[in-house]
């Protein structure tokens, strides 16, 4: 194993141990309630970056994948009372298949067409769920949490830890892709798809792979949300705010490296949690939108780009 890999897995292990210790020693539930949301956005943003950052395909349909994750869980709970692990696994499977579908459907589309197609997909799926009685229809559905498992004393703490696990999985996958031939291939097709194809990069297969992985991770992140809020309705599960939040977090962090979306998600969703509590959720979305526009205009490579520029200047001096 390379040295950087050892450091990475050591860090990941420490992170999980720290999260686990937190659930054991902190009594107050609120930090976990808020922390869960932050971790969820880390997973979503990292997943978004695999397709949107590495491959340059702007996905507006984060809410479609998230909602599909939520409703996969709802369906499993309603039909079989399946355990959480199964819910997440199946959600990932469905999300991956959806990603494959998106990839196949949008093979010939670039840029804005791809983005619009992903919004379209989100609305179509939302409408179908709205008209599906078994999972609650437009009114939504109440869900009962099963008894919590050891060593956790409340369900929210357990979901928090599960989401932390998903964070590690998502980052590990993103890191693997970034450092492998897949990542270099995606990078090539992002810069110039035709040139990449001509030099023998299997652009089609790589794009599909990125769609599948990104989709699977997004849906997996959405699955625990059903039991987190104990309620699911199409309006909130397919909220377009997920799309704009994740887009903003990834682009503000910087999409060239997996650390970018992680930074962006932690920074923005922490701010959001504070704003929601202190002011209102509208202001919250406004701040997000303004930050997104500002960064896209003034700092195209996000926080990562700013940091790198500074480092380069320091080197030169």
């Amino acid at each position, binding site marked *: 194993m390379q040295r950087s890999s050892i450091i990475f897995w050591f860090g990941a292990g420490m992170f999980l141990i720290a999260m686990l210790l937190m659930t054991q020693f902190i009594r107050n539930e609120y930090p976990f309630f808020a922390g869960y949301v932050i971790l969820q956005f880390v997973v979503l943003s990292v997943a978004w970056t695999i397709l949107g950052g590495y491959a*340059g395909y702007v996905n507006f349909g984060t809410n479609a994948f998230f909602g599909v994750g939520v409703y996969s869980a709802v369906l499993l709970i309603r039909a079989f009372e399946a355990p959480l692990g199964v819910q997440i696994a199946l959600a990932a499977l469905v999300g991956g298949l959806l990603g494959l579908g998106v990839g196949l459907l949008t093979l010939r589309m670039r840029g804005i067409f791809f983005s619009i197609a992903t919004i379209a997909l989100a609305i179509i799926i939302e409408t179908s769920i709205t008209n599906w009685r078994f999972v609650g229809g437009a009114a939504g559905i109440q869900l009962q949490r099963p008894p919590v498992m050891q060593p956790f004393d409340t369900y929210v703490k357990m979901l928090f830890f599960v989401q932390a696990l998903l964070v590690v999985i998502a980052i590990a996958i993103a890191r693997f892709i970034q450092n492998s031939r897949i990542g270099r291939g995606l990078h090539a097709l992002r810069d110039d798809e035709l040139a990449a194809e001509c030099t023998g990069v299997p652009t089609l297969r790589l794009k599909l792979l990125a769609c599948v992985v990104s989709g699977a991770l997004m849906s997996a992140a959405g699955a625990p949300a059903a039991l987190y809020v104990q309620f699911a309705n199409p309006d909130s599960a397919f909220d377009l705010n997920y799309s704009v939040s994740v887009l903003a977090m990834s682009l503000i962090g910087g999409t060239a490296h997996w650390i970018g979306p992680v930074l962006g998600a932690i920074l923005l969703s922490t701010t959001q949690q504070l704003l929601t509590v202190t002011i209102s959720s509208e202001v919250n979305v406004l701040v997000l939108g303004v930050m997104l526009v500002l960064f896209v205009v003034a700092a*195209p490579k996000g926080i990562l780009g700013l940091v790198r520029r500074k480092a380069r200047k320091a080197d030169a001096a």
Partner: protein
Amino acid sequence: MFSIELLRDAVVLGVLLGCFYAAVSIGLSISFGLLDVPQVAHPAFLVLASYGVFWLNDTYDIDPLLAGLLITPLFFVLGLITYRLYHETFERRGSDAAVRGIAFFFGVAFIIEVLIILQFGVDQRSVTASYIGKAWRIGDLRIPIRQLVAFAVALGLTVLLATYLSKTFMGRAIRAVAQDEGGLRLMGANPVRIKQFAFGIATAVLGMAGALLIIVALVDPTLDRVYIGRTFCVVVMAGLGSISGTLIAAIILGVAESIVLTMFGASWAPAISFALLLGVLAVRPQGLLGR
């Protein structure tokens, strides 16, 4: 139950609705279809115009159509500024800019949405005018006058714009810039200025379209999300930049929505435009009258 009368009514109302869709989409047909700007915020500007009309109607009791006309110059300027900003920050930098351009407009759309919510709240709004609420009866077919007004104005607007683009010097210049920007530059013209002007026109039309929107239906701040589907569906189905195609595509969408609404109920309506859009993109990406 399904009957031939019901189908006839649905088609008639669908054609009226379709012309209205043409009016709200024609600006996008210029900005996205001709100028290649990923104007995702177009529907947000549309809803913003509706709120402008609502405000004028509510506080000064101005007729919504007149109010639409009054805000048109403001939207023209808004369009000029938006394009200038887009051009300076994205078009000039090339390559990676496309991705960020899309994100830019998406962010702008959200900012507009939230500003409307902060100013007017999340309630649905409507306007008052003498012709709203009445209906015209032909036999057992009942057509709301508001639909007829929207239909007439929308048709007029579309024809006017189509004539402008094909007959006037500036209109031809706009189409020329869409076809061959480099060629235009060689002729000594400044493509950026022409594009900026065209974008201004595309946004100015929204003043009137916004008035029509709030005449036809209740408006709420997040209505733009559904109209992303409707406007892009019309523009893509028409074939990018085809103005006459816009009218045809909009009528197809209007009739399709109207029929689905009659047969399956309102809860399926939002998905129609998006499904049509996906279908067109998958089967015939160049649209009906594509280049």
